[in-house]
């Protein structure tokens, strides 16, 4: 028989109240009686734990869903723009063919080519960004110096920038293509956005307790404080003139790659004094 003045009854009622308010933090202590009240307490505790876990899952799903919705909307919007251009250019080509102006037609065809090229880049960028799931990551021993030298050779960075690496960079466990994607994106941004006659890029490494901190320093225009977090968001364009050619995918991909390796990336910058793109690489 239940005893109404059993203090556990009051605890149970309070717990139900807290659960109704979606507060699942507290666990009630069961006595050693192993009676019906103890059974209710154990049941409530399990229910509370289960609901808490479901709420966490729900919140994660909501977050992922919101990101997916934004991704789909922005991707569709960004793809719509070159498609509209292509549609307009084909009408112009049609007109120029009617007026038999070969020169004009060739101009429009060139424009068509460049627009489809941009669209191709955009689609490739979206694919690169989406493809990077932690499941397809293969770890290998990578010499950061060698990766950079390979990028310099392949992309002819030396033609566009003065690259300086004052010290030896670390050898780490990472994925080579992922590391190439990171450096390639940051180097190409430094070159693209540079407002000086000579683009200067310095790569440094600082040894910390459990990781290396890599810093890529450029002499570009710098990034305003309000844009320093936004630049890592997908399809974000920070608002400079050079951004008109940007897809807003590069740094988001870099962040996505590093996050999938549980590494961090951030930027330190004062407008007018260049930027330092910093990221961690585990030892």
């Amino acid at each position, binding site marked *: 028989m239940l005893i109404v003045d059993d203090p556990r009854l009051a605890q149970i009622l309070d717990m139900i109240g807290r659960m109704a308010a979606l507060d699942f933090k507290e666990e009630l202590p*069961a006595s050693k009686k*192993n*009676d019906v009240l103890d*059974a209710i307490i*154990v*049941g409530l*505790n*399990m*229910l509370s734990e289960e609901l808490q876990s479901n709420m966490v899952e729900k919140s994660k799903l909501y977050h992922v869903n919101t990101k997916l919705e934004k991704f789909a909307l922005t991707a569709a919007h960004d793809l719509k723009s070159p498609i509209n251009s292509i549609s307009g250019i084909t009408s112009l080509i049609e007109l120029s063919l009617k007026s038999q102006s070969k020169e004009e037609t060739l101009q429009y065809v060139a424009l068509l080519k460049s627009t489809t090229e941009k669209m191709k880049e955009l689609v490739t960028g979206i694919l690169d960004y989406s493809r990077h799931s932690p499941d397809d990551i293969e770890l290998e021993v990578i010499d950061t110096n060698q990766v950079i030298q390979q990028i310099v050779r392949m992309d002819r960075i030396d033609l566009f920038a003065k690259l300086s690496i004052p010290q030896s960079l670390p050898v780490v466990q990472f994925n080579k293509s992922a590391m190439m994607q990171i450096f390639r994106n940051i180097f190409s941004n430094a070159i693209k956005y540079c407002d000086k006659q000579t683009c200067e890029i310095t790569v440094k490494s600082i040894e910390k307790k459990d990781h290396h901190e890599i810093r890529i320093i450029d002499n570009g225009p710098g990034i305003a404080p309000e844009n320093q977090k936004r630049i890592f968001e997908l399809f974000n364009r920070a608002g400079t003139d050079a951004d008109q050619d940007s897809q807003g995918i590069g740094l988001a991909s870099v962040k996505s790659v590093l996050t999938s390796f549980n590494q961090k990336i951030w930027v330190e910058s004062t407008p007018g004094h260049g930027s330092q793109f910093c990221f961690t690489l585990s030892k």
Partner: protein
Amino acid sequence: MIDTEKIIFTLLPDHIALVECKPDTVMTLDEGLLSTRMMEKLSGQPLPILCDLTHVVKMTRECRTYFAGPEHAKCFTRCALVITSPISRVIGNFFLGANKPLRPTRLFTNKEKALQWLKEKED
């Protein structure tokens, strides 16, 4: 028979594993993992289990999830849970309702009936 800190595992003559939890047992993921290992040690092949939850006072979420999952399902064919105390009754019902084990699992308040069900199924 294997006697561990919280659980006793016994192989009954009719190839049924008897799992008995000691008084005031709190079942955590460690006990879940131990159970799989001990069941494998007991016979080396999946067996029907007669599991007496009477003295269990708590089973963590991780443990319930593990017991309902594929890893533990490898070591038994079906499971009869004996629930003769109020707490074991709520744990057993919660386990069946929320965790939905992969192998046939039923609750019994009588050990003989539980054994009978395990043997019936075995035939």
